[in-house]
């Protein structure tokens, strides 16, 4: 599988081995971001790095497992409930007159959003490269849901992210 090296700048100590082992000099850049044009994906740098700062990322992802409709129907129903809860928690926080309630509701809104992201990830939206994600972006770009909708963002995403499935 084709892959490329990506350096995690938070872990990198910026002083060492990947620069020496890279056969094409892709790791030696001024901004510390590995040069994707040069990188051949050989993986030497990742093996040499003492800080575990380099990951080899696949260039193409295999298509997602298809999801059963009954599962996604139940998941989307739960997602709607979570979304409603998140909205309520935010509203209660906004109107709260005590600091305790404000913080509790802010925490809940965050928590509920995280849980909902997991539900949706498992409902066919794991990969931004998936046919589902592309179909959604295309619909948004073609029929913007409102005049304020940032259509340009959706269009740019369609351009930046390749689709790894036949679009459905």
């Amino acid at each position, binding site marked *: 599988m084709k892959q490329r090296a990506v350096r995690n700048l938070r872990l990198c100590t910026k002083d060492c081995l990947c620069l020496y082992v890279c056969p094409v000099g892709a790791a030696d850049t001024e901004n510390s971001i590995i040069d994707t044009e040069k990188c051949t994906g050989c993986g030497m740098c990742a093996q040499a790095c003492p800080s575990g700062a380099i990951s080899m990322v696949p260039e193409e992802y295999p298509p997602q497992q298809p999801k059963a409709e009954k599962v996604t129907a139940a998941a989307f*129903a739960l997602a709607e409930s979570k979304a409603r809860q998140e909205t309520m928690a935010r509203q209660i926080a906004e109107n709260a007159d005590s600091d305790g309630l404000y913080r509790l509701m802010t925490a809940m809104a965050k928590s509920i959003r995280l849980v909902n992201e*997991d539900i949706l990830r498992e409902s066919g939206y794991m990969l931004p490269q998936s046919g589902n994600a592309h179909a959604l972006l295309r619909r948004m770009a073609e029929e913007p849901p409102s005049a304020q909708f940032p259509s340009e*963002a959706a269009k740019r995403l369609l351009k930046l992210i390749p689709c790894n499935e036949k679009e459905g």
Partner: protein
Amino acid sequence: MKYVCSVCGYIFDEVKEGKPFSGLPEVWACPWCGAAKAAFVPEKAAAEKQEPAAPVYLDEDMEQLSPGVLSALCSNLARGCEKQYKDEESALFLQLADFFASAVPAVPDAGTEKLAELIECDLKSGYPLLRSEAAAEGDRGTLRICTWGEKVTNILNSLMLRYRAEGDAFLQNTQIWVCTVCGFIYVGSNPPELCPVCKVPAWKFEKVEGRTSA
């Protein structure tokens, strides 16, 4: 008899503790994760809990996702991009997520009581239904998120119970922490060493700040 915390698995052993579980005060909370007494189940029942929920077939129109769900869907894809080190793409998905968040209509009757009801409803029917559908299809990914999601929802339920019983007294002079990986909420001066739900270390917890005084 032993009682197990449905959030973190802490066991209250009546024999070892030398007192009955039922005798604990209602404000008693799990010493590990802070879940309410109501989140504990007798040990046997915990193992048998798996009875499948009666499936209800929802006529869910996928085209009609609400703005709130679309917002979470886009912020989920932003995370997906982040994990692939695609920063520009991640920022664009967040822009879409923000748009949908701003398009969410206000809930007219928002209040802690209503919120508590919805949370309880997820535990009573939302998760059991999703779990039984996923089990029938052998969908392990969905079963896994049910396990985490249910535990986190349990802690939210506990916190709502406490809030409604005690008001915000239990939140004064202490901090509220959210696990940025699974959403577990912890009340205490410091975050737990490991998240009781997803086991990530303390630094993955985010402190919830109070209102910034204008």
